[in-house]
Every structure is written in structure tokens, then in C-alpha cells.
């Protein structure tokens, strides 16, 4: 780790248990992790390793049962998300975090443009929906409904929706999981561009080892713990990835 890097999000000793039906599930136990400003981080892990849980807690979608998460804003002020009220978490998500989900979670009754607008309308300093969609290469399909778009296009709308508010953090849960190889690469290129051009901190969770090659750092999760942190000397451009 390099000392000159500025932390954006810090997690210490995070744990999370779930009651799934009749089973108690330990999804996370004692995770320590820092996300640095402007980095592209890939979290790898098998299914059930706790990566989605970690992402959700980091993004304020879920709360930990133990440990602490702190968000460091641009002025350097630290704000604890642990024990924050629902209202505070909502504010955090509203102004600082963009999400991309594996199943896109677009609102089917809204067009591509409107799916982005629904977020820009409540953001402080958003891009226009048109420029966000242009960024992901969908400038021509503004008025299409989700049902008229392919899976890759839908995911790109979801990314446009997540970045349009110009968030500090872009959290992506298996963004290519439901896509074919070619479309997956296209989506990763978009994430790479956003990270590079806007300087957004991007965290991608995936079980696809290859994607790790495009990251600044790769974190491996196993059984709810950080198993390994690997720093890439060189980030491989997304377009060169093959799987």
C-alpha cells in the first residue's frame, strides 16, 4: 500500500450474519478493507464468499452486525456509516454512491433516458441523462424501453444511471454476470473509462478471475474473510481481456 493514496472508504472488523430460513449464515467475519480514491478495485470470490454482502454494506444498502465502516468525503472529513440512521444512509447513497446490479434492475415502465433521469433529478451535481447515456455508447437509444434493449444495452443503461450523478463510489455487483463475452467486455470498457476520465472510485465484484487483471488491486474473499490482497503493477486494458 502506498501512503500517498487517500482513503475513500474504510472498513474495520466487519461481520454480518443472516437468518436464512432455519439456517444462521455467517456472511462476513472480521473484514478489514480500505478503498482508495480513484482506484479500480476488483473483489473476487466464489459464490457465497460474502462479496455481495460486503459491497452492500460498503454502499449503505445493508448494515453490518459488527465492526465499523467509515466514509471519507472530499474535504477529508470522516463519517461513520456504522450505526448511522436510515435517513443518513439514504443521504449517503443519494449523493455519493452509484450502484450497478447483476440483473440491471431497470424500471420497466421508464425509457432509457427516464431510467437515468430518475436518479439525476435527485442528485446534487449530475450529468444530463443524455451525456451519461452517450458515455456508455447509447446516445442513439434514449427513448427505448428496457424491453426493447439487449442485455448488454440494459446493463449499460444501468451504468449510465449509476454514474450520471457523478458519484464518488461506483459499486458494481457482477456487472457482466448475465452477459456474453463480447458484451461483457463492452461494459467493462465503460467502467474503465469512467474510472479513468472522471476519477470515480470503482469496485467491481465478480467470480471471473480474468477481470482482476484490469484492476489496481484485487481482493480475494473466502468464507466471509479477506483471503488475499494483490496489487497489479500494470492494469490491463479491458479490451485485451479474454475468457
Amino acid at each position, binding site marked *: 500500500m502506498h501512503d500517498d493514496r487517500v482513503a475513500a472508504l474504510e472498513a474495520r472488523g466487519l461481520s454480518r450474519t443472516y437468518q*436464512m*430460513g*432455519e439456517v444462521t449464515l455467517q456472511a462476513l467475519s472480521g473484514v478489514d478493507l480500505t478503498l482508495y480514491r480513484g482506484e479500480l478495485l476488483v473483489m473476487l470470490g466464489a459464490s457465497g464468499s460474502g462479496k*455481495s*454482502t460486503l459491497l*452492500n454494506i460498503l*454502499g449503505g*444498502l*445493508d*448494515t453490518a452486525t459488527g465492526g465499523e465502516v467509515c466514509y471519507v468525503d472530499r474535504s477529508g472529513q470522516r463519517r461513520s456509516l456504522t450505526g448511522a440512521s*436510515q*435517513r443518513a444512509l*439514504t*443521504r*449517503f*447513497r*443519494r*449523493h455519493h*454512491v452509484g*450502484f450497478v*446490479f447483476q*440483473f440491471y*434492475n431497470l*424500471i420497466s*415502465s*421508464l425509457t432509457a433516458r*427516464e431510467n437515468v*433521469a*430518475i*436518479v439525476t*433529478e*435527485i*442528485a446534487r451535481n449530475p450529468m444530463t441523462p443524455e451525456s451519461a447515456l452517450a458515455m456508455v455508447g447509447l446516445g442513439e437509444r434514449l427513448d427505448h424501453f428496457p*424491453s426493447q434493449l439487449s*442485455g448488454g444495452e440494459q446493463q449499460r443503461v444501468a451504468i449510465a*444511471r449509476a454514474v450520471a450523478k457523478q458519484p464518488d463510489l461506483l459499486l458494481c455487483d457482477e456487472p457482466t454476470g*448475465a452477459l456474453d463475452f463480447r458484451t461483457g467486455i463492452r461494459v467493462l470498457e465503460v467502467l474503465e473509462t469512467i474510472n479513468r476520465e472522471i476519477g470515480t472510485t470503482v469496485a467491481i465484484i465478480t467470480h471471473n478471475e480474468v477481470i482482476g487483471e484490469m484492476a489496481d488491486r484485487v481482493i480475494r474473499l473466502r468464507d466471509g474473510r479477506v483471503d488475499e490482497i494483490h496489487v497489479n503493477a500494470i492494469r490491463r486494458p479491458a479490451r485485451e481481456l479474454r475468457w
Partner: protein
Amino acid sequence: MMTLDRKLTRDLWRLRGQALAIAVVIAGGVMTLILSVTTLEALSGARERFYASHHFAEVFADVKRAPLGVVPRLQEIEGVNLIEPRVQAAMRLSVAGFDDPVRGLAQSIPDGRQPMLNRLHLVAGGLPEPGRDDQAVVSDAFAEAHGLVPGDSLEAIIDGRRVRLRLAGIALSPEFLYQVAPTDLMPDYQRYAVLWMNQRTLANAFGMEGAFNRLTLTLQAGAQREAVIDALDLALARYGGTGAWTRDDQPSHRFLEEELNQQRIQATVLPTIFLAVSAFLLHVVMGRLIQTQREQVAVLKAFGYRDAELARHFGLLAGMIVLLGWALGVALGAWAASGMAGLYRDYFRFPEMPFRVPLWALALSLAVVALATLLGTCQAVWQAVSRPPAEAMRPPAPARFRRSWLERVLPPALLGHEGRIVLRHLARHPAKAGLSVAGIALSAGLLMMGAYQLDAVEAMIDQQYRQVLRMDMELTFAEATPARAAGELRHLPGVLAVETWRRVPVTLIHGHREERTSLLGMEPEPQLRQVLDGDGRPQRLPEAGLMLTRYLAESLDARVGDQLEVAIMEGQRRHVTLPLAALVDEPLGVGAYLTRERLNALMGEGPAISGAWLLVDSDRREALNAALWKMPGVAAIGRLDQAERGIRDYLDETILLFAAIFVAIATSIGFGVVYNNARITFAERARELATLQVLGYSRAEVSRILLGEIALLTLVAIPPGWAIGIVFSRLLNQAFSSDLFRIPLVLTPQAFGIAASGVLAASLLVALLVVRRIGRLDKLRVLKAVE
């Protein structure tokens, strides 16, 4: 427009089927209130206006004959405001081209002038000219029934003489809003007429020169009504006064009041039940509708939408549906009410019926449905937003399914996979299933209540006209006549049997309660006019003492064995005390019965009769009419088949029409509930159904799961629906009993059948709609999308 609002309008469009079904439920509840209240206000408003503008009298008194000279003295009674004497007399009429006998009631008005009290509202023509003996104004209902216009003429038998009368005008009177012949229950406009003639004409014809036999008066503000009546009774006793009475005992007012009371009950009980049911259903349905939007709530939350913003969004969604349903209910209610008011115009003759939907009813109905909907919505929204979004977006953990006890009982082959899925699903969500069952059961209950009204009225009329009143004709004599007149009647053409009766006006007194009615003296074991016990068996009249209609005894608070004071208002005006010997259950009217012999004895008279009942050979009716027309002693001739038709028409057009409207509303509510249940079940299960189809299940097999669930819920709901229907019917039965009629609590197999088949039919229709949807299910899309 904000994007969230655009989503709202699109969602509303996407959910249009369900939104419309919910709107129908709301409209049903609102419509009942608007319909009942608007009709009620139209009737009572019209009455109040007419009473005020035409100076309807407040107190009435009949005497045999009193000189006009006493009027100034009566005017001095404390509390009396305006006082007006008049002459009134019953007469028989004959209209050219109409064979049946017509009864008339003639009233005097000051020569050539409007009276002070009970002023006439002239619809056509004018008042009789002063000094003309042959002119009369007739009631508009009668004129309408015969197509009479001013200038036409009528033949009348006045005190035994035939007189030709010319129609000067046609009028309405506040005294005869409801024009029903004495002893009749229902108006018969063809056979009963009210006439107004110059005072001098009537006085001369009936030997009333310088005298009067009916007094009408109004009271000063704050006057002691009882004191005035006592003073009048005292002053008029020597002129053959039969006791003054107030509007409460004035036939037209009393009838209208009864009708308004019915309306008031209907306007309270029915809308309360309907609104409560639709509020409950709305609550459930809106709640489940929002639950299906759980994932969208989570996504919006993940983007940073605040709970309040989401609550507003779904609140608006619910609000739009409420407004739609409410507006629909108001429009339908007002439309139906204007139709009802039109029908009432035939029975109650008002010059005008102002028709207005009361503001408070609009506000109340909107408040009730809005509250119910928002409550249901808020609960569901709260449930949706209170969970962390990550949890809400994740497919729910496989629910804890168990084998249901039914599975253990039934052989596996009988259930099959589909049956097991249905049973386990329902057992897994007992609360949800319970609410669905409750919704369907309530709809079935409403249907049953509607069906009950239809059946009960039919049973009531049947009992009255098949078992109680078994005569074909009722003759009323102008005055008490020796009983041997019956022999003469027996020899008239077409007469098969004759039974005589004596009727005397009385006031029954028990403790501090009083009822004005009449004593009917009959044969000890009357055949043509039976008295029935609670089980419908004919009873013999008690040897001594009175037999009363149960309703009358209850309003006197008298039990069998109690002593009743009887103030006779005729002849020697004796006061006697008689024991209450037995009760009789009659659906229509109220009465006090004893043997004629006993009544003659109480009156201190020989074997006298007031009239007779005839059984008639219908082929010789015309000859009989001709013969009766020649008997001036017969003041009135009533035909039972016409009376029955009259009451059937009346009930068909009022209560039964209402009931039919309510059945239609109940059916729509039932449909709305079942449809929403099915659509929501479909939305909740789309993923599972798609999976099964992908695994190779046929559309029919998959449909069976969904339909099985709908069918099972509906079947389970039917027995509680019946129970609810019985409770609702009881409520209605208790509310609807008046001295006009008491609807019996008869629950026929048909009522149970209508309740069951109503919800089954709704389910079947819904099933067809849903199966079409299964066919259109895009398997792969559903499987890809998160729940």
C-alpha cells in the same frame, strides 16, 4: 413532469386492469351511500318545501257535526295558530269507460278560494267558481290515471244521489302526498280519488249547512301539543269528536314518514356495510399491490430516494385509483338516485323534487375510501421501505414450507404435484390466504344480503295475500249496518261466500303508551281473513280479550295477560279494559282483533257490521260490479288482486329495485376482489410458473396451479360467506320493521345459491382472464429478472 410521476402514470396504465377492479370496489361502496342519501334528501327536502309553502296543518280532528259557531271559541285555545273547519265526505265515483268502482273523498274549500291550510297546488285548470255546485278539483294522480283534463266530467253518488261533476282543475295537496284509500296499504290511483269542492256544495249535499265535520289547525311556536289536543277533545266531545290527532297519525304523513324511515335505515345500514366491506377489501388489495412493487421500492431506495418520497409516490398511485373509483361511485350513485327519485314521484305526489347530491355525503365517502386505501398503502409501503434495500432486492430466502395436514390426510395420487404446490403455498401464507378468503366471503355475504331482500319481500307478500287475506273483494258500508245485510250480499251474482266484519276506531292505552288504531271484529274462526301464529297456522280468536299484531303489542310494551285500556272513538265512546289474550304474526300492517259478537257487545249495539269480505266467481265480476253500483249503502269496494298488484308494483319499484342495484354492486365488488387476488397471485408466482413451463410443464398444468389456488380460496370462502350473509340479513331485518310491514327472516336455498354462484362466477371469469395471461408469459424474461 418529474420522472417519478411519469413512472406513476405508466404504472397506472400497466396496472389498469387491477386499478379498474379496485376502483369498482370503491365505486360500489360510494355508490350505495350516494344513492341512498341523495334519494333520502330528495324525498325529505321535497316534503319539507311542500309542507311549508302550502301550509300543511299540524293537528286534525273529526266530529260528527259541529256548528261553525264554535270555531272562534276553539281559536282561543292556547297554542292554536290558524284554524280552519271543513266538510269532508266519502263518495263513490264512476268514470266513463272504466268499469271498476271508484272511491272518492271529497273535501270542502272556501267558495271559490284557496283554503288557509292545506293549500292546493294547481297543476291544471282552476278552483271551482263561487256559487257553482257541479265543479270539482281532482287529485292529479287520479286525473293522470284516467287521462282526465279540466272540462271532463265524472259521475258521483253523493249521499245516495247521482250527480254529474265537471272538472275545474287538477291539483296536488300536502295532505295527500301519498294518496291511499282508508284501510288500503298501497295507492290505487285508478280506483281512489280525492276531490275538492265548494264548501256550500258539500255542506248542502251532506246536511252540513252552517256546520263542519273536520277541523285542521296549526300551532304557535312552542305550543304544548298535548295540551291543545286535550282542550280540543274536551270542546269537541259533545259534537261527536273522535279525538284530535297530529301529523304523526295523518295517513299521508305517516306513510311518507315510514318510507323516509326505511330510507334512513337503508341510507345508514347498507352504505355502512358496503363501505366497511369495500374499505377492508381496499386495504387488503392495495397492500398486496404495493407488495408486488417491492423490488422497485428497493431499487429506488438504493438510488437514494427517501422514504417520504416513496410514500408520496405510492400514495399518489393509490390516490389516483381512489379518485377514479370515487368519481365513478358518485356518478353512478347520482344517476341511480335520479332514477329512484323518478320512481318515487309516482308514489309521492310532490310539485317538485329538488335533486342534489349532499356535500357531506361526497366528503364522507371520499374520506372513508381515501383513509382505507391510504392505510392499506401506507402499511405496505412501510413494510417495503423499512427493510434494507439489499435484503429487499435479494430473492427471498426459500420460504419454510411444510407438508400441510391435508396432504397427510389425502392420498398423494389425489393431489398430484400441482395440488401439493397449491396447498403448501396457501399453508405457507396463512395470513394472506386468510385475507383473500375474508374478502371473497364478504362479497358473498353482500350478495346473500341482496338475495335475502328479494326473497323476503316475496315471502312477505305471499304470506299476506295467500294466507292472511283470502277474500277477493272487500266491501265497506257507509255506516254500521245490521248483520242481516250479509244475506242480501250472498244473493248477488257471482258471490261464492260472504264473511262480515265490524270495524271501530279506538285508541289502545297501556301504561303511558298509546296507539291509534281500529278494532276489527270478525267470525270466531275467520276463513276469508285468517289470523296466523308464528308458524303460519290459522288461529281461533280468543273467547274474551284482544288479539294484537305482535309489532303493535311490542310498541305498546304489552305482553299476553296484560290489561289494555281501550278508548272507543265511535257511538257512546266508551272506555273499557280488555286483557291481551293472544298475539298474531302478520307481515303487513298492524291490527287489533276480537270476535264481532264481543265488539258489538262492547259498543252496546245489536249485530251490526261495517263491511263484508266476498269470495267471487271471477267470470261474473262485471255483473257483480253492476249490482254493487246500485247499492248506495256500499261506500267502498276494494279488490284484493289489485291491492296485491299495487303493493307488488310498489315494492318492485322501490325496495326490490334498490336490492337489485345492491346485488349488482355486490357482484362487482366480488369480481373486483377475486380479480385482484388472482392478478396478485399471478404476479407473485410468475417466476415459479415460468420455471415450471421451462421444465416442460404444459400451459394447462401450470394453469391448474393458479386456478387451483383461486378455486380453493373461493370454495373455502363460501361457508363463511354464508355466515356473514346471515349476519348482514339479520341486521337488515332488524332495521327494516315498521308498522307498514315487517320483512320476515327467510333465508331460502336460492339466497345461499346466489351467494355461492356469484363468487364462483366471478372466479370463473377471472380464471379465464388469468389463463390468457399465463399463455403470454415470457418464460425467459421472467426467469432472468430478479423477483
